[in-house]
C-alpha cells in the first residue's frame, strides 16, 4: 500500500506540472492582458503607460522565461502575487477555500446519502409506486439545468415564502457569534447546497437502483437467502455493499469538483467562495490568481482520484490481486 501511494503521488505531481504548463499557455490565448485591463479601468489608453505596467509585472519578458519563473515559484509552493488584489494568491485562495468547501462538501454529503438511500429504496420497491415516484423525481433533477433550479428555489423559498435567505454567506451586520452565527450560516447554506447537490443526487439514485437490481440477481444473494438471513440483512450486507462499488467511482468524480465545480451556484447565490474568485480573476485577466485557482483545483482532482482508489482497495479485496 505504501509503495502504491508513493507511486501514485509521484505520478500525480508530474501530471500536475503538465497541467500547470498547459494552463499557462491556455490563459495567454485569451485576448488582452492585465496591463490592458488596468489601463482601461484607469481610463488611460496611453501606450507608454501600458508598456510601463507590463514591465512592472514582468509581462514584457519572453514567454518561456515567464513560464520558467512561474514553475520555479510553484515548486517552492509559492503561488505568486495578485497585483489586482494586492495580496499573495495563496492567501486569497485560503481565505475563500473554507466557504467553498463548506458549500460543496455539504452538497456532496447530501447528494451521496440521499441518492444512495433513495436509490436503494427504489430498487427494493422496483416496479411499484415508490420506485416510479423516485425515478421520475431523479429524472427531473437530472434533466433540469442547475441555474434554473437555483433561481426557482430563490423565488419560491426566499421571495414568496420568505423561509430562507436568498444569497450571501451570513447576514451582513447581523453581529452573530458562536452558535447563533453557525445557525445563521446554516440557514444561508440550505438553498445553494441543495441545488448544487440535486444533480449528483439524481445520478446516485439512478446508479444505486440499477446496480442493486443487477446484484440482486447474482448467485451469492441466493446463497445468503439460503442461509435463512432476514431480507433486510440480505439487502444491506450482500446486495447494497456490492452495488455501491460503481457509486464509489462516481463519488470520486464528484469529489474532484469540490473546489472548482461551484462557480455557477456561487455566482447565483453570491457565495463568497473560490468559484466567484475565479470568475472575477478571469474578467480582470489576473493571470497569477487564475493560475493559482487552477493549480489548487487540479491538485484537488488528483488528490480525490487517489483517495477514491484507496477507498476502492479497502472496500473491494479483489483489486489488490488484480494489480
Amino acid at each position, binding site marked *: 500500500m505504501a509503495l502504491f501511494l508513493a507511486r501514485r503521488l509521484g505520478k500525480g505531481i508530474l501530471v500536475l506540472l503538465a497541467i500547470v504548463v498547459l494552463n499557462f499557455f491556455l490563459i495567454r490565448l485569451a485576448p488582452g492582458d492585465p496591463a490592458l485591463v488596468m489601463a482601461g479601468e484607469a481610463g488611460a489608453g496611453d501606450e507608454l503607460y501600458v508598456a510601463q505596467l507590463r514591465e512592472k509585472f514582468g509581462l514584457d519578458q519572453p514567454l518561456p522565461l515567464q513560464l520558467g519563473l512561474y514553475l520555479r515559484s510553484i515548486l517552492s509552493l509559492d503561488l505568486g502575487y495578485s497585483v489586482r488584489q494586492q495580496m499573495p494568491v495563496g492567501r486569497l485562495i485560503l481565505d475563500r477555500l473554507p466557504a467553498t468547501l463548506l458549500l460543496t462538501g455539504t452538497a456532496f454529503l447530501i447528494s451521496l446519502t440521499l441518492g444512495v438511500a433513495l436509490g436503494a429504496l427504489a430498487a427494493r420497491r422496483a416496479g411499484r409506486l415508490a420506485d416510479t415516484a423516485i425515478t421520475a423525481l431523479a429524472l427531473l433533477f437530472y434533466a433540469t439545468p442547475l441555474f434554473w433550479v437555483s433561481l426557482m428555489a430563490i423565488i419560491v423559498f426566499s421571495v414568496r415564502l420568505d423561509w430562507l435567505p436568498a444569497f450571501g454567506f451570513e447576514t451582513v451586520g447581523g453581529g452573530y457569534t458562536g452558535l447563533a452565527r453557525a445557525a445563521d450560516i446554516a440557514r444561508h447554506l440550505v438553498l445553494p447546497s441543495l441545488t448544487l447537490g440535486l444533480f449528483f443526487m439524481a445520478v446516485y439514485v439512478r446508479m444505486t437502483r440499477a446496480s442493486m437490481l443487477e446484484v440482486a440477481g447474482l*448467485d451469492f444473494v441466493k446463497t445468503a437467502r*439460503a442461509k435463512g438471513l432476514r431480507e433486510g440483512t440480505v439487502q444491506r450486507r450482500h446486495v447494497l455493499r456490492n452495488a455501491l462499488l460503481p457509486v464509489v467511482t462516481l463519488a470520486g468524480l464528484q469529489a474532484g469538483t469540490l473546489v472548482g465545480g461551484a462557480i455557477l451556484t456561487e455566482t447565483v447565490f453570491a457565495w463568497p467562495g473560490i468559484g466567484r474568485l475565479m470568475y472575477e480573476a478571469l474578467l480582470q485577466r489576473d493571470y497569477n490568481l487564475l493560475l493559482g485557482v487552477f493549480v489548487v483545483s487540479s491538485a484537488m482532482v488528483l488528490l480525490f482520484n487517489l483517495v477514491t482508489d484507496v477507498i476502492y482497495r479497502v472496500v473491494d479485496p*479483489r483489486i489488490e490481486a488484480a494489480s
Partner: protein
Amino acid sequence: MSAPVVSVRGLRLALPPGADRPLAVDGVSFDLTAGEILCLVGESGSGKSMCAHALMGLLPRAVKPSGGEIRMEGTDLLAQDEAGWRDTRGRRIAMIFQEPMTALNPLMRIGDQMAEMFEAHGLLTPAERRARAVALAGEVGLPEPERIVRAYPHQLSGGQRQRAMIAMALALEPAVLVADEPTTALDVTTQAQILALVRDLQRRRNMAVLFITHDFGVVAEIADRVLVLRHGRVVEAGPAAAVLGRPQESYTRTLLAAVPSMDPPVRTPPAGPKAVEVAGLTKTYVTGGGWWRPARRVEAARGVAFALHKGETLGLVGESGSGKSSIAKLVMRLVEPDAGTVRLGDTDLTRLSGEPLRRARRRIQMVFQDPFASLNPRRTVGRIIADGPRAHGVPEAEARERARRLLGLVGLDPSAFDRYPHEFSGGQRQRVGIARALALEPEILVADEAVSALDVSVQAQVLALLEDLKARLGLSMLFITHDLRVAAQICDRIAVMRRGEIVELKTASALFAHPEHPYTRALLDAVPGRTRSAA
C-alpha cells in the same frame, strides 16, 4: 428403511402464463431418507432445479406452487410463512449451488460468510462463530483453516470455494442437504474430490441428500436412489443400480445410451498428408506490471508441437487453465504466438499478414463453446451464415443459396433462414454455429468445447453430425474438450495438456487402454461413473 425426513407428494409448480408449458413441475413425489442420496436427473428444462428450489422456498417470483405438499417433521413446508421459511433454510435444509465462482459474496471473508450461518439463526457468540468456522473449514478439507477463513473468495480455487460452500451448508447440521449441480462447473479431478467429500460427510452425519445433476457419470458415482425427470414429470424412479442397470422406460434408456462410453471405438488412423503442422508453439501471457511492479506470467503454451492429418480428428484434453483453448486461438491465429509456427498444408500461417492472411483464414474455421453467446442476437440465422462467404467476395445470391444448403446439411429446416438465434434451442444453435463455420468451405474445423454446454442426448446428435460432416466434406478437426468421454468417442488421436505442455499424445484407444503419464492416469481415474460403467 427408516421413515423419510422429507416427503414430497404430488408437487406442482406453476409457470407464469405464456411459458412453453403451464407447469414447471407436475405431480412429482419423492422421499428423502436419512443417510441416503437421491439423485434427480434430467435434461435442461426438466424441472429438476425447480424441485430443489421449492424445497428451500427459493423459487423465482414468477413460479408458484399450485399443488401438493412438502412434509417435514409433520408440517407442510409449502404452507409456512416467510419467518418459517427463514428458520427452515440453513438450519433444517441447506443448499449448495452450481457455480462456486459466483455463489460467494466477493467482498466478504470466507470465515465471515460461514459465521453468518449461525448469526442468521441467532446462535452462538461472535467468538464462538469464528471458532466454529475454523473447525468447519478443517472438516471439509480446506488447507490451513486458521488462515483460509480470513481469505476472500477470489483467493480460493473453484474446488476450494465449493468446499467452503459445503462447510457453510453443514454449519447448522441440517437434516437435509440440497445440492444443485455442485460439480458441473469443476474439472474432473476436482469433481471427483468434491463428490467423495459429499459422500463422506453424508455418511458421517447421516444426512439425507437431494443431488441434482444432468450427468449420469455423477449419478453412477454417488446415488443411492435415482429419479428421472422429463418435462416436469417423473419418468422413472428406483434404486440406482436398478435404474442405471435395468432401465424400464425408453426415455431413461435413451438418456443412458447417449452417455458417451469410455471405450473408444476402433478407428483406422488416417495417414493422409498433414493438414496442420504445429511446431514449437509458445505463448506467455503477461498481465499487470507497471512502472515499478513485477508482472504476472502465465505460460499458456510451451513448445507445443503436433500434426493434424487430413481427415483426422485430434483431441486436445486437459483441465481448465491447461492452455487447450489458447492452442485453439494460436492455431487460428486469433492471438499472436511468441514463437513457433503453424503450417496449413504448405503455407506458414504465422508468417502471413494483410490480405494473404485474410484469405488463408477461410481455410480454418471455429465452432465455439457457448451456443448462446457466439451468435449475434440481432442478425438472422441466414445472414450469420452468409456473412462469411460474402466477406470473401462470394456474390450475394450465391452466399444466400449456400446458407440455405448448409441449413439442410446440419439438419435444420430451411425456414430457419429468416429467424433469429433466440428462437432456437441450444442444440439447434450449435448446428447454426457449425453451418456458419462450414460456410467458408474450410479444410480444418476447430471445435472449442463445442458440445460441452449441451444435454447428453443433444450432445450425441451434434457429435454424430460433426462426425458425418467430417467424413462427407473431408475435413480435419481439432477437437478441444475437458470431457474425456466425448474425446473417446470422436477423436482418432488425443493429446493431453497440462500447464501449456502436451504430456501425452497417442491414439484414443491406446490412451484409454495404456495411459503412460501419471497425469493422464489421474485424469482417467477421476472420470465419474467409470468403475460402474466398466463393471
